[in-house]
């Protein structure tokens, strides 16, 4: 299957085929490095952790997810935390809520590695989990905060646990991270980030109306190689925009769960995808007005098979 999809006439150079992935990894490690500069090299640009930090002694940043839990737990908090949460909320509203997941979150590196290894080992076992389970868990974590009076999700949140472990000492916290890794590797495909993480669900909601979006403006050039579906951490978000022309759906990937990771832009040899804004979502937008690439019958069949698998 993969040989079929990789045989497309790819004139794009190596950089074009990897750039968003590389930029994204650079972003993830840069964030971690900025935090680690203090404890490792004594250069305190950023203090604290992703939960709440202070940059250069002036810029407060606070995770709104935990602050809302704190608020539901019936607690009042200082202005620094509140201001930090407002800044973070505003930023992710502008660039896309789940940009946090794809470009900042350290667990993403863990689960992406698990996914890569899963493909390399050809592991097929997949426990079907509803993708909206994360919203249930989001509701549960909020309810727990309300009932227990503490931000209960923080007890098991692998995101803060991993980053805190790297910055302040891991203890036995790595067990939790290993559990997430193994879960994604052997139990469920894209299980944690794509189905369970309530933090991701929170940021999805936060970025539901974000102006920055991936667009499939060049969808008329699509040859249904399915490469984008293969790499996308949330494959269900692509379909309406990519194949929606006949239903009158615009080329905008208007799904809160899209992480704006840009990997689809990397892999598409037809350059269907690009970063854009949510505005001007007209149906017939694109360089070519030709119909769907007259692909062969077997390609359509492959498409159906892959679709069923995903």
């Amino acid at each position: 299957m993969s040989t079929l999809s990789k045989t497309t006439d790819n004139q794009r150079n190596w950089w074009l085929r990897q750039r968003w992935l590389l930029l994204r990894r650079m972003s993830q490690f840069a964030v971690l490095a900025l935090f680690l500069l203090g404890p490792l090299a004594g250069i305190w640009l950023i203090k604290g952790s992703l939960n709440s930090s202070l940059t250069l002694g002036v810029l407060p940043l606070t995770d709104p997810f935990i602050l809302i839990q704190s608020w539901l737990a019936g607690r009042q908090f200082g202005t620094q935390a509140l201001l930090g949460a407002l800044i973070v909320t505003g930023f992710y509203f502008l660039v896309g809520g789940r940009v946090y997941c794809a470009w900042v979150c350290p667990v993403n590196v863990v689960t992406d590695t698990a996914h890569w290894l899963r493909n390399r080992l050809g592991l097929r076992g997949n426990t079907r989990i509803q993708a909206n389970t994360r919203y249930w868990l989001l509701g549960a974590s909020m309810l727990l905060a309300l009932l227990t009076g503490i931000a209960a999700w923080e007890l098991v949140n692998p995101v803060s646990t991993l980053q805190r472990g790297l910055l302040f000492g891991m203890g036995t916290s790595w067990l939790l991270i290993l559990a997430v890794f193994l879960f994604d590797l052997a139990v469920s495909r894209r299980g944690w980030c794509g189905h369970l993480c309530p933090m991701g669900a929170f940021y999805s909601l936060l970025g539901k109306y974000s102006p920055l979006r991936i667009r499939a403006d060049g969808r008329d050039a699509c040859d249904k190689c399915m490469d984008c579906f293969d790499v996308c951490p949330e494959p269900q978000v692509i379909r309406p925009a990519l194949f929606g022309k006949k239903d009158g759906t615009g080329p905008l990937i208007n799904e809160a769960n899209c992480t704006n990771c840009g990997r689809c832009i990397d892999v598409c040899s037809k350059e269907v995808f690009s970063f854009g804004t949510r505005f001007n979502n007209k149906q017939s937008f694109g360089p070519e007005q030709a119909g769907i690439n007259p692909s062969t019958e077997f390609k359509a069949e492959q498409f159906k098979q892959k679709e069923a698998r995903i």
Partner: protein
Amino acid sequence: MSDSLGKPAGRAAPKKLDRRRFLSDTAKTGCAVLLTGLGLGAYASKSAALPVQALRPPGARSEDVFLGTCVRCGLCVRDCPYGTLKLATLGDDVLIGTPYFTARDVPCEMCEDIPCVAACPTGALNPDLGDIDDARMGLAALINQETCLNFQGLRCEVCYRECPLIGEAITLELRHNQRSGKHALFIPTVHSDSCTGCGKCERVCVLPEAAIKVLPANIAMGQSAEHYRWGWEEKERAHKSLVKPDPRHRYNLPEGIGYDNEGVGLIQDKTQLPEPFPENPLDSLNQGSKERP
């Protein structure tokens, strides 16, 4: 016509299946999430109990408020200049991610500018704490008199010397040394109105296991009943004794024995003391009865 007839029939079958599947999936997810929530809730309430030897940073609000307010960011840990504070990890008994310190390892140095409190973005460490001497991280308690060297009559008193509030939070109270009969015991005594719970005394205790330990105040302290009145304190407040002086004793005292009401007590006049055992045993029993009115 056939198209319009066929369509509903064609849709009805998958729709029914979809609904069944939707309901069962939703029920499964709901149950799984409910179970997770219950487990997490139980875990949360269990791990909310702070071990007695884990101390919160200065200015920390009461434990339940603190746990709800602290966002586990570690800013207080970063700004602690002495490496006293640490964040709990998964293996610790302290709730994960929250700051604490262990007095015996690294006590609080009681910085005057209290940088940990200044760093706290949420106010889980109360910013109103202006003076570090007002901090109440715990309360020192000399909990083992059997091993404390000063209780044995030695002059160790390292805890007293190292206390940042020497002479206020810990004083040395003199007591008679009954063992030697002629020396004094210098008893280290903690005063809850001054002790901040910084943990220095526990840190420096020379014993392999400290005889003085910092504990949460509610564990280290007893509580006096509300209706108790200490006579000597009331006397001081009223500038006079609140009870009438004793009337003259009219007890049936043996001959030659008096009683001093001013505090001396029984007075024996040795010279006039009669023979303790008269010849007639009845005299001994009736002793003094003749003087009775």
